[in-house]
């Protein structure tokens, strides 16, 4: 047996011999089968004795000539399709729309721009690169990757993007990656995470205002799906969009992730404008150490409170806290690692590809997309500002002042926003490290956005 490696030729011969034996047997079966035929064509079936017969099963195979082949190959190039194609598709609203080849090309370019943004350092590459590829994939003419039921992207979308599955798995992974210690050590920073949700709700007015422009028709469900971008939470955004306005899913998801990547650009000017140098120099007391027991009880506490008070937010909060409990309990290191790594990575790839797969002309190329881009920016700005303002109000009552720079981290975008707080603080005082203090509002922002999402679901149905 172990000699096999030394005699590969003999092995090959033996295998071929075995297959030949199988053949002899197999013929018996087929000879039997042959008798149960249906209607034989006039020419009979092709074989050596009847070379002019028809090959069985070849009836519906198209015939090609050099000319037809050349024409066919030419007409199935992408170049040709981009110029000539015109397909009738249905918009999410049920209206028929003609999608032209150049629109597909435009979307492919959008896809490559997303890839470009993602591939540049620090722009949420883990998400934007696969989203960009998904966008390109789905718009390839004759690619069929988004087609039901067997297209690659359709399979992925149906598996977990159009429902609760992938977003909640991602939340489990985020929970397993997150250390809530800074929030537990200084619980009042949770209020800054709450304040940032003004970015979510305030944006509703802006979206409503867009309705004054002809061509824009946002109803409240759609407005909520757009406004949640201000929460700076990818999975929550996708979760809400899938429930309230699936046709906007891709656009709001891409906007959310793009602005999360742009947090270092959007936030600092607002932070500087709303704070005085003296405020930016406020030093905060070092955080107390948090015991293991507190870290273990925290996820359970948040989960129980969410069940009692706002159960429509419980799927999001529950999965986040499930992941965090697995992390902190210590006895299930295997599961914790899997949630943080393999499972999170695999689902990230699929969720991102699936989000990208919704970036089709009939869903994306409409006025709503543009307004979503502008409203997303507004939402981030409001969230940043309202966090800072609430911090300043809190400072009126607190003995130990809060550095308002940490309040901008309440938008979530963990841990990018906390790093921005730290960076702007260091500009003013190079010895003042705010990162750990900013992590408190930062992780509270995730909880706050989940609660806001729960309110929307409670009001407008899940």
């Amino acid at each position, binding site marked *: 047996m172990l000699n096999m490696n030394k005699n590969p030729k003999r092995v090959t011969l033996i295998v071929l011999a075995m297959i030949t034996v199988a053949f002899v047997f197999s013929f018996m079966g087929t000879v039997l089968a042959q008798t149960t035929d249906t209607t034989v064509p006039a020419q009979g079936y092709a074989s050596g004795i009847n070379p002019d017969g028809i090959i069985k099963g070849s009836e519906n195979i198209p015939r090609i000539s050099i000319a037809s082949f050349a024409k066919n190959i030419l007409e199935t190039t992408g170049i040709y399709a981009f110029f000539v194609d015109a397909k009738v598709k249905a918009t999410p609203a049920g209206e028929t729309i003609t999608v032209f080849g150049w629109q597909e090309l435009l979307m492919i370019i959008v896809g490559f721009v997303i890839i470009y943004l993602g591939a540049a350092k620090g722009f949420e590459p883990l998400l934007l690169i696969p989203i960009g590829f998904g966008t390109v994939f789905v718009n390839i003419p004759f690619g069929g990757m988004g087609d039901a039921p067997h297209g690659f992207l359709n399979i992925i979308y149906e598996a977990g993007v159009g429902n609760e599955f992938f977003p909640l798995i991602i939340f489990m992974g985020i929970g397993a990656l997150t250390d809530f210690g800074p929030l537990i050590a200084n619980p009042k920073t949770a209020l800054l995470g709450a304040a940032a*949700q003004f970015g979510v709700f305030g944006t509703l*007015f802006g979206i409503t205002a867009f309705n004054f422009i002809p061509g824009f028709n946002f*109803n409240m469900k759609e407005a909520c799906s757009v406004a949640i971008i201000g929460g700076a939470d990818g999975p929550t955004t996708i979760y809400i969009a899938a429930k309230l306005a699936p046709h906007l899913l891709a656009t709001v998801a891409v906007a959310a992730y793009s602005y999360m990547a742009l947090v270092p650009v959007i936030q600092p000017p607002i932070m500087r404008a709303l704070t005085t140098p003296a405020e930016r120099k406020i030093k905060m007391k070092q955080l107390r150490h948090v015991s293991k027991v507190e870290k273990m009880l925290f996820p359970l506490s948040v989960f129980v409170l969410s069940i009692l*008070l706002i159960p429509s937010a419980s799927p999001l909060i529950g999965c986040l806290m499930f992941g965090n409990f697995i992390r902190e309990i210590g006895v299930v290191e295997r599961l914790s690692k899997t949630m943080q790594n393999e499972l999170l990575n695999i689902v990230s790839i699929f969720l991102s590809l699936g989000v990208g797969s919704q970036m089709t002309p009939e869903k994306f190329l409409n006025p709503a997309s543009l307004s979503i881009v502008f409203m997303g920016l507004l939402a981030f700005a409001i969230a940043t500002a309202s966090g800072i303002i609430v911090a300043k109000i809190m400072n009126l009552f607190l003995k130990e002042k809060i550095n308002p720079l940490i309040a901008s981290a309440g938008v979530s975008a963990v841990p990018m926003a906390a790093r921005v707080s730290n960076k702007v603080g260091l500009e003013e005082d190079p010895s003042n490290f705010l990162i750990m203090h900013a992590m408190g509002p930062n992780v509270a922002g995730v909880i706050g956005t989940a*609660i806001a999402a729960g309110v929307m679901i409670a009001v407008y149905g899940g």
Partner: protein
Amino acid sequence: MTIIEMFEQSGVLTLLGMGVVFGFLIILVLFMDLVAKIIHALGWDKDAQEGQSVQSGSVTAATGNSAVVAAIGAAVNEYRKTDK
């Protein structure tokens, strides 16, 4: 629903939505304070009090060894590639 009505609805949703968000997080803050006090009273937070010096020590070690960590990481990576 007209645009004016939708502004109104947005106002109601903002007012009450923010109320729920703040309400929830304030209750959470109070609850966490309570839990922290109970844990302290029961003495279950000893690991944190003792751990302070230990933990900072281990952090230093980790930072000091970052070259070693990177080297091991690279080696493991290399090993994985060969392994295939």
